[in-house]
């Protein structure tokens, strides 16, 4: 977005905080946190997305990955239902994983975008939290 943010412009900038409170996500499960329909001339910027594992609820198992590339669990912004196809994502490899806030995910093409969080293992239940920030310019 170029130019000055005038009062009138500011009124058409919507901040959407993303917050999934501590949630138990069973092995192999995924669910939609939010679904954002974007119309023509609207602009979505996902500034950040963070996933945090609070606890591993199935101790003592070696995780069997369903989607190796997405690590233990992940949260991402999607245009399709294919979990390995995120436009931006945070995949858990350490205690917390976050998207690069210096490189926001920008979308200006109309469509419905979904924020999906998934447990990418076949045998490990997790307790996790997702937070993030989205701006919509309209």
């Amino acid at each position, binding site marked *: 977005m170029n130019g000055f943010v005038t009062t009138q412009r500011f009124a058409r900038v919507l901040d959407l905080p993303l917050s999934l409170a501590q949630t138990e996500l069973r092995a192999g499960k995924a669910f939609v946190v939010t679904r954002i329909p974007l119309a023509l001339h609207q602009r979505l910027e996902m500034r950040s997305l963070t996933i945090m594992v609070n606890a591993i609820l199935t101790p003592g198992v070696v995780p069997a990955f369903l*989607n190796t590339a997405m690590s233990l669990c992940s949260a991402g912004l999607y245009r399709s239902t294919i979990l390995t196809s*995120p*436009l931006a994502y945070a995949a858990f490899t350490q205690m917390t994983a976050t998207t690069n806030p210096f490189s926001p995910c920008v979308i*200006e*093409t109309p469509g419905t975008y979904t924020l999906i969080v998934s447990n990418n293992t076949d045998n490990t239940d997790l307790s996790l939290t997702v937070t993030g920030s989205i701006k919509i310019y309209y």
Partner: protein
Amino acid sequence: MPNQLESALVIALRDTIKWESAVVAPESGTLTPVAPALPFDAVTYQERDRQLAYRDLIVGAAVVEVSIQVGDVWNYAVLKPTLQGPAPFSLPFVGTEAGTVSSQIRHVLNTSIPWDAARYADADLYGRDSLVYEVLARACATTFVDPSIPQIDTTGTVIPSTSIWSLGQGAPMQADINAVLPLNRDLFKNPDRNLAERDNQLAGYVAQLAQALQNPFEHALRLYVQIEAFGTVQREPDVYALTSDNGTNRVFQNDPALPGANQIIYNIPGHTLQWIQERVDEVHVPQIYAMVIPGVEFGQAIETLAEVPERKDAQYWRGKAGQLQPSGLKVSDTDIYLTTTNNAATQGGYMQYGSASLTVPDLITFNLSGSLPPGDYRVSVLGKPNSRVEIAGAQNLTDTSGTLGGATFDINVPSGSISTKPYLVEHGDGIVYSGSLYLPGDVFVGTSAVPTYAQYGAVPSTIRQYAINFVLALPQGPWNVRLEYTNLTGVTNYFSVKGEYVASGAIAVPVIQDIAPLPWNSTNGNIVLTPIAYMDVTDAGAFAFPIYWTGGDGQFHVRKLVFESAVAEGRYAMTGTFAGSIAQVDVDGENQVPGVLRWQYYSYGSVVGTVPFTINYTAEAALPIQFQQVQIQALGDYNPTPLSQGFQAWRKECVDRAERVIVEGYQMAVAAYGTDIPSFRTDGSFWTPDASEDWMSFVEVYNPRVREVPAIATDGITPGFQYEVDTPSVVYNGTTFLAGQKFYGVESAGTVYSGGTVHQVGAFRKSQPGHLGLPALVPLGLYFDDADKMVKAYYDTPLATPTIMSCQPWMIEYGLYIVQEEFWMPETFGLTLPS
């Protein structure tokens, strides 16, 4: 030239070159002539002096003009005189008017006659004006590519490089030749001394200017510097702005303005220049100042350009982005990929029209070419779940091929051409083949061992192909099927066609019935569809699907078999094997919505030659999937630029700047085309991969370095576009360029190069599966229509402004472009690769 100006530097400059009594001199450069044989006429002498005064004003205007150029280039406010009126800045010169052109003035003496004032003093003043101007013009010409004032004597044969200025004896005074004044020495000398003094003032200004031109580093507030190596530009011209001047060091810095980096430091006492780049592993030894000095590396040169910074394009910002390495995980492209899969690199699965596919759980292998060192890799595959399975006619097992991937039934097969196909005998009395008699209407299967047959009876029969056979597998359940077919040659008004579903070990089930012939009333070659036929697939195993041409003349041609089910979603559990290592994908896909399947491998060993990637699709048999592209990327860590913590958004900033300049160029193109703007949409609002290319061509009209195009044809050089050599060397415009060197296409050099291959240079490249989420250049209003499962463009060209946004899977399928790797940033923040 510098020496001749030194003495003029001591002159105390006045801030104004006054108009005084100047009158406009003839544009021809001549002065009002004096006829010595005629009676003395003071007005003529007065007019000549006034014309000389006007020539001083021209020189003054030239000084101002050059000062402005110096200011534009170096951002340095050079001293310049105030003029009391407009004057041209191009000084005319006529050699016969000039005297010694040696900076001295032969003033009149008490012994002089009036004519001496004209033939000596005026001529010398004329020559001195010219000398002052020419010195300035030469300094300007040797400094600037596009000097602001023209030279008088470009060959240097008329006006010498005179070194003394002080001989131009002058004194400021208001004096004029006038008939009412006494006719004595001072009547002529005083006005001439005044003119000489004006010349001295101008010489002083020229000396100041020449100083600034001679060593801009002493004065400049801005430098424009380019880094070169062996004839190729390593860093395009950058603006270095003066950030500090402590009397000893003048520090110029450019973006990214990292602490203590990207600087040029001019040491005033030492007269040296030092370049400090963003890396700290190589130190530049300070060099004696010059416009071109040696750089850090062997063969490298740092050139200070005397040019006004031009409008920067996306490719420039690509270079700037690459000057800073961010911190974090790095994903980089390898040269191992498949942009299409319907080729010999694919083994297994079922080849569909346009791409390889797995219709049911099965194995498919992509044999990629290249070599990889040990490391971590990501394999990305552009997949498209699709309930519509299109099998090209040529994919039959009956060795029957045809135009555009179809299968053309053989007709009028002569004896000697029988192969392993089913044939039908038509007309006549029949034939004898392999010892057996076949009457009209009989069918036989040829063998390669017996290619000939013999006619039986008096009336000859004709032989044509009877059937082609397909084998494929589909998920269990209801399907419908249609044929795309045509008549290629001959005349017919119908085809009788039969298709059967033959499951393994089961009896054939008729699917396409030949009881009702297919009418043919179209033009030969036009593709038409059979009515929908329904069938139930009993299991996911392979089945045969023979197509029989049972009746009708002409030449039957099957372009495609099209199977379709109503399944909307499917699950894909797939194990990817990458030369011994395995990784998993288990995802859900939606019908006709493309996505990227991604496998990631850690601590993978090296491989040389063929790099196989195998997908073992284990579950579930519901919705077939096409594999359109495959790409291997390397995973690693960036080696961050020192002290760049505060600059993590630099690359994003460069993307934004590139977007702005592209939009600006696009709007210029729209304005230039006026009402004749091409449209790239088809059938209203539909978009195609070809439309993406055409639209990029339009973007390139005012942004010639926006798109990278590989492997330019040897006659494909376009003026204004930049090219980089891929192979050892190419010759263009009479110059040999080595690998990595770049050149621009120029009108006069034509479109042909020779000797190797080049690619077109650009800040964007065609997207591939691994580029998901990267900034892509997209026409505003382009979108994936969820109802039609097609990409559409809401706007036509004038409003389809380039917009940079995250790359989505359908953008990859439709061939949109993403930013080059120099713009990429870590996907995640603050992480390292798992060990």
